[in-house]
């Protein structure tokens, strides 16, 4: 019998690692030589953020079978934690203009704030997990959705203004652009503003992948497939689910902090249910239960909605012929239709439950079979 408990590092895994490194390298090189105003980098930054949150959601929905819709709430917690702890003290009077500079009067480095962002989100996940995780399927989804809405309203409450700045936005904290290395006269020498978010996402997704392939991860998959059978085999449902929920929220919190860095501003108003649905859509399009799928579809989703389809918003002339229908707002229509087509005809998403190494292995096996039949 094959040893199931320990996977050997096969060539497919190595090739996958090489592909990831190649992508990172390519983006680094592109960043140095392409104009910094190119849309590609904006899209890469945003999709890195969304990919992380989508993978964290996938950990719950795809690998544990917990249907949670609280992602926007946890992102909000992460984004605010990051913002609150990193706005330079000198700028606080400007930002907290209605609250006398706010209560928090110190800063922590960005990586500490990012870690804190994850921890705060995980802590809240633990708290609300206590009652909420007793619920199943739809009820859990409704409860987590409600949680996200409550958190949003709470952060906008003006009594909390000295901390959260009430209805006003947080800004002036370090954003991705601050990672660029500048010389004394302020000119950028080395561009890092795209590489850093990609690296953060790679690191976090890497941790999640290791987790999924561990004993813990296999226990989660067992819970997903059949709770009763899993329990009968000695898996503690409550603690496993709670841990999965906290881990997922931790990374959603980190993703929230990344979103804050990407936007350079944070306002609770933006973290609506629509944001959760966008991420759910990414997970579904990529394939529920596929990390590769979530990353791929995050890029495709962001690129299509923010970049490739933007030309639909502008009138286009072909010679003297004006292309009909193209005007402001039409992009949204086309985008919705594309999504409907994808959901109708690719029900299992781009990747199904397959990962990149699986594809490489499949490709190899096919070649081997072809060679054998000759």
């Amino acid at each position, binding site marked *: 019998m094959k040893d199931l408990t320990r996977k050997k590092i096969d060539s497919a895994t190595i090739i996958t690692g090489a592909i990831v490194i190649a992508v990172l390298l390519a983006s680094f090189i592109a960043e140095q030589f392409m*104009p*910094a*105003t*190119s*849309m590609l980098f*904006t*899209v890469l930054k*945003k999709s890195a953020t969304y990919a992380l949150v989508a993978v964290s959601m996938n950990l719950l929905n795809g690998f544990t079978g917990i249907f949670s819709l609280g992602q926007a709430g946890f992102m909000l917690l992460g984004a605010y934690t990051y913002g609150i702890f990193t706005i330079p003290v000198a*700028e606080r009077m*400007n930002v907290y*203009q*209605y609250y006398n500079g706010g209560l928090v009067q110190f800063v922590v480095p960005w990586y500490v704030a990012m870690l804190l962002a994850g921890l705060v989100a995980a802590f809240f996940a633990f708290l609300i997990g206590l009652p909420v995780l007793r619920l199943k399927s739809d009820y859990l989804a409704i409860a987590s959705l409600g949680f996200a809405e409550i958190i*949003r*309203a709470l952060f*906008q*409450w*003006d009594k909390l203004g000295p901390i959260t700045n*009430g*209805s*006003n*936005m947080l*800004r*002036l904290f370090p*954003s991705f*652009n601050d990672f660029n290395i500048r010389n004394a006269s302020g000119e950028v020498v080395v561009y890092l503003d795209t590489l850093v978010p990609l690296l953060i996402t790679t690191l976090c997704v890497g941790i999640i992948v290791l987790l999924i392939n561990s004993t813990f991860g296999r226990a989660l998959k067992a819970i997903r497939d059949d709770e009763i059978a899993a329990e009968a085999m000695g898996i503690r449902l409550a603690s496993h689910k709670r841990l999965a929920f906290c881990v997922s929220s931790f990374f959603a919190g980190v993703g929230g902090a990344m*979103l804050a860095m*990407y*936007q*350079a*501003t944070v*306002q*609770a*108003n*933006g973290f609506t249910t629509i*944001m959760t649905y966008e991420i759910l859509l990414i997970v579904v399009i990529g394939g529920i239960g596929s990390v590769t799928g979530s990353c791929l579809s995050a890029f495709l989703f962001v690129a299509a909605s*923010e*970049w490739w389809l*933007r030309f639909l*918003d*502008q009138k*286009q*002339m*072909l*010679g003297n012929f004006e292309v009909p229908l193209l*005007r*402001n*707002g039409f*992009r*949204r229509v086309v985008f919705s239709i594309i999504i409907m087509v994808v959901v109708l005809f690719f029900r299992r998403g781009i990747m199904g439950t397959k990962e990149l190494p699986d594809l490489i292995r499949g490709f190899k096996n096919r070649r081997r079979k072809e060679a054998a039949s000759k």
Partner: protein
Amino acid sequence: MKKVLALVLTMLLVLSAAAMAETVKIGVFEPATGANGAGGKQETLGMQYANQETKTVEIGGTEYDVELVYADNASDNTQATSAAQKLVSEGVSVVLGSYGSGVSIAGSETFKNADTPAIGVTCTNPQVTAGNSHYFRVCFLDPFQGTVLANYAYKELGVTTAYCLGELGNDYDQGLVTYFKQAFEGLGGTVFAESFPKDTQDFTSYLTNAEALSAEVFFCPVSIDYAVKIIEQASSQGKTFPILGGDTLDSNMVSNAAKGTSVKVVVTTFYQEGANETFDNGFKAWLAEDAEALTNNGGNDIIAGVTAMGYDAYYVALEALKAAGSTDPKAVMEALPAVTYDGVSGHIEFDETGDAVRTTAYVKTVNNETGDWEFVTEQTVG
């Protein structure tokens, strides 16, 4: 199919490249969808009208065609960043917009990194221009507007108790309420302030509260949709206090809601129809010809304050281009602080923050019989 598609796309590319000769691009950073879509479209109309009125500009001795490049920020801070990036990547020389201060602040960072100047048209939050050198603005600010409204309520309406209502999480509403409160209490009045959650449909409890607190004026600087509901419900409850609002309420949808009721609606705004006959008539004639523009204006030809501001902002941008003598965004940014222009909404020049120096706001009210806006007074705060 692929071949045809590739061919069409290449042709588009070639055509746009051919059209690029001697063209200066002005970015239109406005919401066309989302909560502020209606307002953003009306503001864009002003720019479009100005663009078809003055299609070219002479920069450094060469005649350039002016091309407006649109990016829909969807009234959403996340999309604002990429919309701003789209404009920057298209190489615009200057950006106009946006309706809504939140998206302007969100897009600001992108413009700053690309050294592209932006001219805010009706974003009234002080934070848009504070502490940066690339964002300018042609309208007045919330502290000014809040003070004007408080003065008007206290001195002209003669009331001493005010009730303020803003949307929770909306910095525009909350900011204006804060400034109104400061000014009104400074004059010696009493203010009660409350917030309602997003997407509220039923405002009757807030209206009842206001009455229970014996408020004599109801100040609600909210988005158009909410304002319409508040007016309708105040009317059906037979409330007698006047409803006061900021520049967002200056919309034909609000005046339509007040038509045929006995609710008194008073707003401050940037421009009053009739202040400039040539602009009014020209704009109306343009609307009559262009069905799409008419739809974007809400189906009738009442001129919104934001349209006049969009019109002025376009000409300010042209002045800046002329003064810069180049289409380089950096040169335009350096030229902007010194630009002065006499627009339909008054004289425009910038102070050291980059805000237009404005001392006057127009106060207008709805005629309850005809549903038209009527000019009340010009309120000045020194």
